C-alpha cells in the first residue's frame, strides 16, 4: 500500500512539473545558468546607523542592476515617463513639483532612504518597496500591462535580468500585479543604494575640512537655540523622521491636511514629514507643496512668517525666542544659508553608479 502511494505521489509530481518544463522550452527564456543571485553589500558610511532593510526584498547585485535599468527606462510607461523624469540625479533625484488632483506636491529627493521608517510627505507608505506601485496609475506611468509584458519579453536584456534577480523566467507567466511588484522591488533595490554621505558638512564632522567663518556661524545658528533647526533636522541623517506642523498655514484642506490623511487623527492635521536637509540646495522648490522657490524664502519664513496660531503647531515653534520671529539679521540668514549649502554632496549627484547605465 505504501509503495503504491509512493508511485502515485511520483506520478503526481511528474504531472505537476511537466507543464512547466514544456512552457520553459516553449518560451525559451530561461537562461541555462542556475538562479544564484549575489548579495549586494550596502556600504554603510562611517557614522551612519545600520539601515532598516526588509527581508522580503533583499538587495542583490542583479536586482540593483535591473532596478537601475528600469529607473531610467520609459519601457515601464505608456507616455514616455520614467522614474528619472521626476527624479533627476542633478537635483538629488528630486525635480520640482508635480500636480495631483489640482494640487502641487513637491517631489522629494531620493537619498539615504534605506534609513527612513516611512515615506512620502504624510508617511502614507510604510514600505519603500511599495512606493513605485503607486506610479503604475493613470496619473503617472499608466502602462498597458500586456504591452509592458511584451516589451520586456522582447528586450535583449530584461528577460535574463528578471530571471537573475527574481527567478522569474517568463514575465508573461506571472500576474500583472506580480510583475508590478517585481519592477517596484528592483527599482527600490537601486534606490536603496543612493547614499549621500560626502558633503562638506560630512567631512567637517569627520574633522577633514574646516568651515568658512560664514558657514561656521550658520552651523552655530542651526545647532543652537538661535535657529533651532537641529531638533527636526539633526544628527547624521539630518532628519528626525517625525511629523510636525511648523506653522505654514492656519487653514487646512486637501493634501494640506498632511499626516491626518493617513491616520485620521485630528491632531495630525497640518503635520508633515520632516525631510532630511541633505542636498537642500538642489531640491527647490521647498515645503510639501513647493510654495517656496529659494532657501532665502524658507529661512525668511522661519524667521518671520510662522503662523503661531496654526492648529497643532509643533511645541518647538512657540519657544520664547520664536514668538516674535527668530530675529535673525541679514548676515545671520546669509550665513545660515551658507551652512545649508555645505550639505550639498556633488560626489553623490555625479556618482557614475547612480547615473543611467550604458
Amino acid at each position, binding site marked *: 500500500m505504501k509503495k503504491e502511494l509512493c508511485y502515485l505521489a511520483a506520478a503526481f509530481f511528474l504531472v505537476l512539473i511537466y507543464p512547466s518544463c514544456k512552457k520553459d522550452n516553449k518560451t525559451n527564456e530561461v537562461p541555462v545558468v542556475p538562479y544564484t543571485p549575489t548579495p549586494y553589500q550596502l556600504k554603510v558610511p562611517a*557614522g551612519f546607523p545600520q539601515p532598516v532593510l526588509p527581508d522580503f526584498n533583499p538587495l542583490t547585485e542583479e536586482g540593483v542592476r535591473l532596478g537601475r535599468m528600469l529607473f531610467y527606462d520609459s519601457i515601464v510607461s505608456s507616455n514616455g515617463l520614467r522614474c528619472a523624469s521626476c527624479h533627476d540625479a542633478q537635483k538629488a533625484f528630486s525635480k520640482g513639483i508635480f500636480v495631483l488632483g489640482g494640487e502641487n506636491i513637491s517631489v522629494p529627493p531620493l537619498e539615504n532612504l534605506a534609513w527612513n521608517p516611512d515615506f512620502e510627505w504624510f508617511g502614507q507608505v510604510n514600505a519603500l518597496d511599495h512606493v513605485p506601485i503607486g506610479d503604475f496609475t493613470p496619473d503617472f506611468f499608466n502602462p498597458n500591462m500586456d504591452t509592458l509584458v511584451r516589451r520586456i519579453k522582447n528586450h535583449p536584456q530584461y528577460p535574463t535580468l528578471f530571471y537573475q534577480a527574481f527567478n522569474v523566467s517568463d514575465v508573461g507567466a506571472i500576474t500583472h500585479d506580480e510583475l508590478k511588484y517585481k519592477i517596484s522591488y528592483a527599482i527600490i533595490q537601486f534606490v536603496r543604494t543612493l547614499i549621500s554621505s560626502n558633503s562638506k558638512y560630512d567631512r567637517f564632522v569627520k574633522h577633514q575640512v574646516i568651515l568658512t567663518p560664514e558657514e561656521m556661524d550658520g552651523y552655530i545658528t542651526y545647532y543652537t*537655540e538661535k535657529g533651532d533647526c537641529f531638533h527636526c533636522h*539633526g*544628527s547624521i541623517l539630518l532628519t*528626525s523622521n517625525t511629523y510636525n506642523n511648523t506653522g505654514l498655514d492656519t487653514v487646512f484642506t486637501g493634501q494640506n491636511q498632511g499626516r491626518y490623511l493617513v491616520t485620521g487623527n485630528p*491632531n495630525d492635521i497640518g503635520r508633515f514629514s520632516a525631510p532630511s536637509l541633505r542636498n537642500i540646495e538642489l531640491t527647490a522648490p521647498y515645503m510639501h507643496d513647493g510654495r517656496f522657490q529659494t532657501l532665502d524664502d524658507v529661512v525668511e519664513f522661519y524667521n518671520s512668517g510662522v503662523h503661531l496660531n496654526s492648529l497643532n503647531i509643533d511645541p518647538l*515653534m*512657540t519657544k*520664547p525666542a520664536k514668538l516674535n520671529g527668530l530675529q535673525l539679521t541679514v548676515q545671520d540668514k546669509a550665513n545660515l544659508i551658507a551652512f545649508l549649502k555645505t550639505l550639498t554632496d556633488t560626489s553623490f549627484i555625479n556618482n557614475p553608479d547612480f547615473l543611467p547605465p550604458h
Partner: protein
Amino acid sequence: MKKNQLIALLVFIVFFASCKNEKAEEEPTPVPPASSMTLKVSYEVDGISLVYDSLMYSNAAGNNYSVYMLQYFLSQISLIKSDSSKVLMKDYHYFDATIASTNQFTIENIPEGGFIGVSFNIGIDPAHNITGALPNNTNNNNMEWPEPMGGGYHFMKFEGHFLNVTGDTLYGFNMHLGKNENLVKVEIYAPVYFNHGNFIYNMTMNLNEWFKNPYTYNFNTDGNYTMADSLAMHKISSNGTDVFTHH
C-alpha cells in the same frame, strides 16, 4: 624489580585517583536558579492615564496642558542590596512613551537573592553622555544634544501645549533635559526577591511630578522651554527624583 613494580603501582594509583577526580569534576554542580525581571513603565497624570494631544491636565501651578511627546533615557539601572551596594543590570534604555515596545525591557540571569530596591538615572550617566558614546541608532541619534551646546544626549524630551495666562492662546512647552548637572538620580525602595522565573517590576511615571516638589513649575513664569535655560532645567531635574513609583 620489586622497586619498579612498586613505582608502577604508585603511578597506577595516582592515575586512577586523578581519573576519579576528573569524573567528579564532570558531575554537574547545582546552579542556583536564575531569574529575570521585566521592568514595565506606564504613564499617568495624577491618576489619569496618559492621553496624547488632549488639553485635559492641570499641573500644580494651574497650567492647563496637553502632552505631545515624551522620550527619555534611563541609565545605570541597578538593584540595591541590603548593604546599599548596587548591582548593575542594564547600562541604558531608551523610552518613547508613544511606542509600547520601548516601555518595557527584560533583564536576564539575575541570581537568586533579595534586594531592597531599584536605582537608575533619568538621563545618561556622565561617562556616556558624550556624543557618539551610545550605540549608533536612530533613536539615540535623535536624542543627541548638539555639539555647539556641549554635546552628549537629551536626557528627556517632554513636549506639549498649554493655555497661556489669559487662557486664550495655546503655546507649546518643551521640557528638555540634558547636561551632566541635570542628571536625575532615582532610588525606589521596595523589597524584591528573585528565586527563579520572571518577575514583573511595574513603574508608573506621574507627569505632574515634573512640575512640583520642590519647585512648583509654571510655564508662564518659569519658561516654556528649558534647553537653553539652566535654571529651568535645574528646577525640572530637581523635581524628577519622585516622578516614578513602583506598584
